[in-house]
């Protein structure tokens, strides 16, 4: 579903050039979930943008659904949850999800209404909150809404940037349950996270990114074997040390 080989992304030119991604390979199959783990600045968000096609790679190749990333047919089959989701402040929650449904090709008023309510129900957004404008939403509510907007057209690929950041435990649980529903439907998921619980529950495999490179890759059980820490910090640190990039 997603395939990248030797992916490189450099911002700027000449002396000011900054390499955000340096030769990443990744494969994401139908029905699986791949986690992008790593500290800030490791290239997770850039990899996500390259997958969505909003950035073009400087080198290497990335394909989604068997073609170049970011083409229209691929966008229509993808749902994206950005890190900051309070962006359509003038619209209500329901209007926002309805807008996304219309833009992602959900046709028919009755069908759309049903899908919108379903999505809002799945993310646990209360009926009164659905009528409020996004400007009044808390970060957690906005994240739930973004998830509903990404989910409403039942995409084949979900791309999530820090999906549980800012969510309370209940919200995290609902988000993970939704990812499970998506996986059982046969959908694939690419997500970036700092949160161990999210990674353990949602991801089958993970790439640990260190300064734009893949420091470690494989099934999450293997990567976290013998690590009892409640966070991903030891994994990130050990990977960075192995790469000789610590500090």
């Amino acid at each position, binding site marked *: 579903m997603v395939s990248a080989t030797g992916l490189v992304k450099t911002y700027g030119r000449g002396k000011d050039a900054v390499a955000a991604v340096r030769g990443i390979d990744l494969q994401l199959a139908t029905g699986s979930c791949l986690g992008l783990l790593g500290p800030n600045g490791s290239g997770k968000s850039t990899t996500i*943008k390259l997958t*969505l*096609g*909003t950035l*073009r790679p400087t080198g290497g190749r990335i394909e989604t659904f068997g073609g*170049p990333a*970011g*083409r*229209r047919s691929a*966008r*229509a089959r*993808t749902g*994206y949850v*950005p890190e*900051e989701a309070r*962006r*359509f402040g*003038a*619209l209500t929650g329901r*209007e926002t999800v309805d*807008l*996304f449904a*219309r*833009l*992602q*090709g959900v*046709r028919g008023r009755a069908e759309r209404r049903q899908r919108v309510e379903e999505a809002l129900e799945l993310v646990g957004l209360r009926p009164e909150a659905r009528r409020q*404008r996004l400007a009044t939403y808390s970060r957690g509510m906005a994240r739930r809404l973004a998830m509903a907007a990404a989910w409403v057209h039942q995409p084949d690929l979900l*791309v999530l940037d820090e999906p549980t950041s800012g969510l309370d435990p209940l919200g995290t649980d609902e988000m993970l349950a939704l990812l499970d529903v998506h996986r059982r439907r046969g959908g694939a998921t690419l997500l970036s996270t700092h949160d161990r619980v999210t990674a353990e529950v949602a991801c089958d495999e993970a790439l640990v990114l260190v300064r734009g490179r893949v420091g470690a890759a494989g099934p999450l059980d293997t990567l976290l074997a013998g690590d009892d820490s409640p966070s991903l910090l030891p994994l990130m640190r050990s990977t960075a040390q192995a790469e000789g990039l610590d500090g």
Partner: protein
Amino acid sequence: MAELWALTGRHLRTSARSRAARVALTLFLLGLGLAALMGRDGPSASLLLVAALFVLVLVVSGFAIGAGTVLPDDRVAGREAWLATLAPPGWKRRLSVVLAGWLLATSVGALGGALVGTVAALTRPDLALRGWSPVTVPGARLLGGADPVVVLLPDGAAEHRELEIDVRPLLSGEGRIDRVDVLWTTAEASGSFAASVRGPLRFRPPEGAQAVNLASLTPGVRLRIVGARRLGPARSPVPTLAWIGLLLGLCAGAVAPVAVLLSRATTGQTAAAGAFCLLLLGSVKEGMSSLAARLEPTGFEAVVPRVLDVFAFLTPDAPLLDLLVEATAQRAPPLGALGMALPALAYTLLLAVLACVPAPARLAREASG
């Protein structure tokens, strides 16, 4: 189309709910309420009408110019990047902003005009907006020249045969003259009337006349005829002012695509300021063109007409002042006045197409979309 309407709907909702829109509409309604409370003892109906329409022009222009702030705001807030992950290609996102700005300008223009008309109908029965149809002045258009001016009259009911002639006095060395005596003659009768040299000249030729000759009886006065029409019956102010408001909206709406085009490369404020300047220049476009034609094309001054020509080429044809003058003169523009807005419509279409063209750096990505 469904995607385009969905995006347009989002912009319409966002604009209508913005603080600027609420403030503008509240002030407009307060002004109308105040004018209504003044009653017949207050300022003249013409003055109130033109004031209300002037404020309406500002509101309508604000909606059109405001289109220039949408894309930069989306960029800054991260909405652009989010929307770029969805199915609609970039040109639809841009076109939707143009469409929303234009729709807001035209619909607010028509609705605002209707509202002004309703208030006028309820509070100022002395307001009489008269319909009119153009008459032909085939020969010389100089009253006070060697030959009389001939005005051909179309058929019409006797009670609607009043002629109105717009004149512009030409400078003379005879000192200040404010009034002119005009002699009119037809095949069967003749007469005279006095009028201001600034016009308009109004008189009622006898029934059955097919043509009227006009000549000045005041020595030293020369008046250029710039327009002539036959006045019709008074029209209901509600549809008439809705029509004027719609025409104002169509003209002002022409800057919505310019604003969007500018906003692709600049901040929202710069785009809005640029669009505002173009609208201002567009409202005096005819004056710019005629000034450029009159200037001597020699020496350094030759640059000025070229600059005026360039501005006249770049600006939309937005005869907002002409429409306000129509209202001040208590005239109801006929359906044919849509012709005044046609150049603005053509300009809107052309610039909307330009706003859809992808930027060079994005060509490859958007071509695949």
